């Protein structure tokens, strides 16, 4: 069983009291427990089971403007005493930083909203095995599928965040995740693809057969890929890739990148950085939302932010430390975004595919080719050639490259947004990028 609120609160107040006793002027603590149970299948047989029970504690102590932190998975009182003593000692020896402090009291969350993020259902491994059996039976139906792997994970977490200004809140969350990975083969090639579903509540996950079927279909479609020549050509990003571009945008407007001057979006506030009509939201209070939260990792309340309005950058993502440095108030984004999304575009996916006589549809990228300082982007890619709105043949061993500053201004979005992940985008087209191939 997952540790209850009472146990976590008792540990957190024990730590805060000790920190004060050893000489800290302020302190904050997070105590968490998560239990996760996974079953893995391979080629329609049980392959692995994994149970994980994680306790963790993180403590930050302040002496005036000096700060240091410790973390541990050993919650025995004796161990915590040694660690907190060490933390306060280290704090004394760490130089001052004028921007170090707990969050402003009036910004702290007053309540924990009921966002319906916890489903108490516990399912035995036998039920997971039954789901995966159905999933893999469907995924293996086609002859070309030579290997299937799938997994089912049930996750339950609980935490308490507390600080010496009296903040003490936390809540339980759960997730149920199933995934399917399939490998297909023909005489020319071997390819792999996947599909997964993840929800806070068990009854909301995709059914097993559908998951297996999508994974298998997507994989078979990739067989016998060709390499194309280098060219400048419109690129359409599948939703699962488009969300990554949105995540890069979020990293570039984090107050830490802005205050350090290491973002290509520094000084762009209130300027047009995206195409006309584009809107980006970060909405923390979506019921059952995968990124939903009542407050950020410092306890600051979170409200919906309109980050981009009609192409214009309106807000950074601000935490306490970097906010003070930039002379801005925290907007509750320590630890990043919540449910981040692009608003729907105006045209259907079909119309988007038909906008150009020839384009590339990208379903997977590999490599870490985003440079946040310069905005340069270059990654390996896999996908399909599209002519007159129709999928012609699969493509691989190419790269796509551009600079985000130009890419953002050449985005056209379809109207097929869905909330499948915590960061979501409709299908996205970007014009003006360069493909390197043969």
């Amino acid at each position, binding site marked *: 069983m997952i540790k209850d609120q009472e146990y976590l609160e008792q540990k957190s107040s024990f730590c805060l009291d000790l920190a004060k006793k050893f000489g800290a002027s302020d302190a904050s603590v997070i105590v968490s427990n998560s239990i996760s149970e996974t079953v893995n299948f391979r080629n329609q047989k*049980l392959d692995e089971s994994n149970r994980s029970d994680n306790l963790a504690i993180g403590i930050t102590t302040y002496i005036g403007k000096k700060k*240091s932190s410790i973390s541990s998975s050993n919650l025995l009182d004796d161990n915590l005493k040694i660690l907190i003593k060490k933390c306060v000692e280290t704090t004394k020896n760490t130089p001052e930083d004028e921007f170090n402090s707990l969050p402003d009291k009036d910004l702290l969350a007053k309540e924990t909203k009921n966002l319906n993020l916890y489903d108490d259902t516990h399912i035995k491994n036998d039920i997971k095995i039954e789901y995966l059996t159905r999933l893999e039976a469907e995924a293996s139906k086609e002859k070309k599928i030579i290997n299937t792997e799938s997994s089912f994970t049930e996750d339950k977490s609980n935490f308490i965040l507390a600080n010496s200004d009296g903040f003490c809140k936390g809540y339980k969350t759960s997730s149920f995740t199933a995934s399917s990975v399939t490998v297909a083969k023909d005489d020319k090639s071997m390819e792999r693809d996947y599909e997964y579903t993840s929800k806070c509540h068990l009854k909301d996950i995709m059914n097993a057969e559908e998951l297996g079927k999508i994974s298998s279909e997507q994989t078979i479609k990739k067989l016998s890929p060709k390499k194309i020549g280098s060219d400048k050509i419109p690129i359409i990003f599948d939703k699962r890739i488009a969300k990554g571009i949105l995540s890069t945008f979020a990293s570039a407007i984090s107050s830490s990148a802005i205050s350090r001057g290491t973002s290509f979006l520094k000084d762009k506030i209130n300027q047009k950085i995206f195409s006309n009509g584009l809107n980006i939201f970060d909405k923390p209070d979506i019921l059952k939302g995968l990124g939903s939260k009542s407050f950020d990792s410092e306890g600051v309340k979170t409200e919906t932010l309109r980050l981009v309005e009609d192409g214009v950058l309106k807000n950074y993502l601000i935490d306490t430390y970097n906010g003070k440095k930039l002379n801005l108030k925290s907007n509750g984004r320590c630890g990043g975004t919540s449910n981040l999304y692009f608003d729907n575009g105006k045209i259907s996916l079909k119309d988007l595919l038909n906008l150009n006589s020839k384009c590339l549809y990208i379903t997977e990228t*590999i*490599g870490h080719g985003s440079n946040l300082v310069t905005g340069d982007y270059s990654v390996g890619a896999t996908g399909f050639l599209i002519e007159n709105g129709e999928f012609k043949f699969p493509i691989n*061993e190419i*790269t796509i490259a551009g600079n985000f500053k130009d890419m953002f201004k050449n985005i056209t979005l379809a109207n097929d947004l869905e909330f499948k992940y915590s960061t979501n985008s409709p299908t996205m087209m970007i014009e003006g990028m360069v493909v*390197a191939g043969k």
Partner: protein
Amino acid sequence: MSNFFEKSDLSRNEAENIISDTLQKCDDGELYLENSKSESILLDDNKIKNSSYSSDLGFGLRAISDEIVAYSHSNEISKNSLKQSSENLKETLKSVKGTYNHSIPKSNKKYYENINPIEQKSLNEKIEILNKVNNYLRSTDSNVKQVTANFLGEQKSIEIIRSGGETLTDVRPLIRFNVSVMLEKNGRKETGVYGVGGRQSYDNYLKEDNWKNVCDEALRIASVNLESKPAPAGEMKVVLGPGWPAILIHEAVGHGLEGDFNRKKTSAFHNLMGQKVASEGVTIVDDGTIDNRRGSLTIDDEGTPTEKTVLIENGILKNFMQDRHNARLMKTRSTGSGRRENYRHIVLPRMRNTMMLNGKHTQEEMIKSVDKGIFAVSFGGGQVDITSGKFVFNCTEAYEIINGKIGSPIKGATLIGDGPSILKEVSMVGNDMMLDPGIGTCGKAGQGVPVGVAQPSILINKITVGGTKL
């Protein structure tokens, strides 16, 4: 050495009984105990931004029957917790009938000393060096706009208890020192990053003014990039410099030679054992036995002593890297490659220090032979799709080659190639093999482990460069 049972209601004897009881009729398994201590001290934006310390303690109990692996882990080393894990494993392995495999080879060799690097240098000394780094870089070049420098230190103690009470232990030190610098000139910004590390005390890497060399290298890379122009797009010849660019080998062929992907037949190499997979003259080994290296291990995370495993010899595929589980199912032996990030994770076959050995050519010969191509000196990270064999890596320092001469620096670009065929495109192997500076972390199935790479300069006939200039 950690005494894991000192403050627990669980005695060593009771633990051994639970292990033997759980693993009866299983083919393999063990109790893995781990206690790690780590520190991180970060200077950024002219200030000490972070000084943190972490201590992590836990166990993982594993039972294997035929192809099925059952694993359970917890932070609480207690009677209750171990029993609960044991029950969880038994629930998965309902009807087992294996034979426990006892044999673990023994070795007395050690590849690093039993030290705790964190305690060997005081916090104040570490802060002082970081401040010196910041001042040195900012006073050396007026274009320096941002400096980040950090120390990471770790000591990890592990103990493996097998059925019948056989016990294996190891204490592993690891440190890393990293510098990142951003320059701004005429409105243009570029960064340079360099670092050093391994399984020794900080002083081995910082003695005299060694930290200055790390700063100089980061600054040099950033300065080169300030002058860079857009990279070309398309297929061309590429000369790779020695040392760290060997992550090409790690991504392109290393992962594809790990035992699990080959047992499952999802690697593009699974049916190529004994066949020619690389040009003549190409020999690649994976070596866990080099003193004090980041990827070295005295024993792996299953207790098997590490070794130098020949993967490809003169172009012929000789061996895969194996942990005990995959080795048993493939009817071969473990190569001491069973590794895990920590007790929260199952063991997988992983790389240690992956190295291409010397050939006979010089770098100069290679560059002279190229009419149009690029010379890649340093890389960021890489990634591979095991199944299709396609791999990428990102250049962080590269130059164009025109008519046999090195030209202007070019902007960071991704290179993409095909793993199984790339080594056949190697047309010259250099005589200047170098180890990387000790900074690599390899990710697989969500687990990061420290690794090393090494290679001499090599010439590749054809690889796709992902630039923007058509």
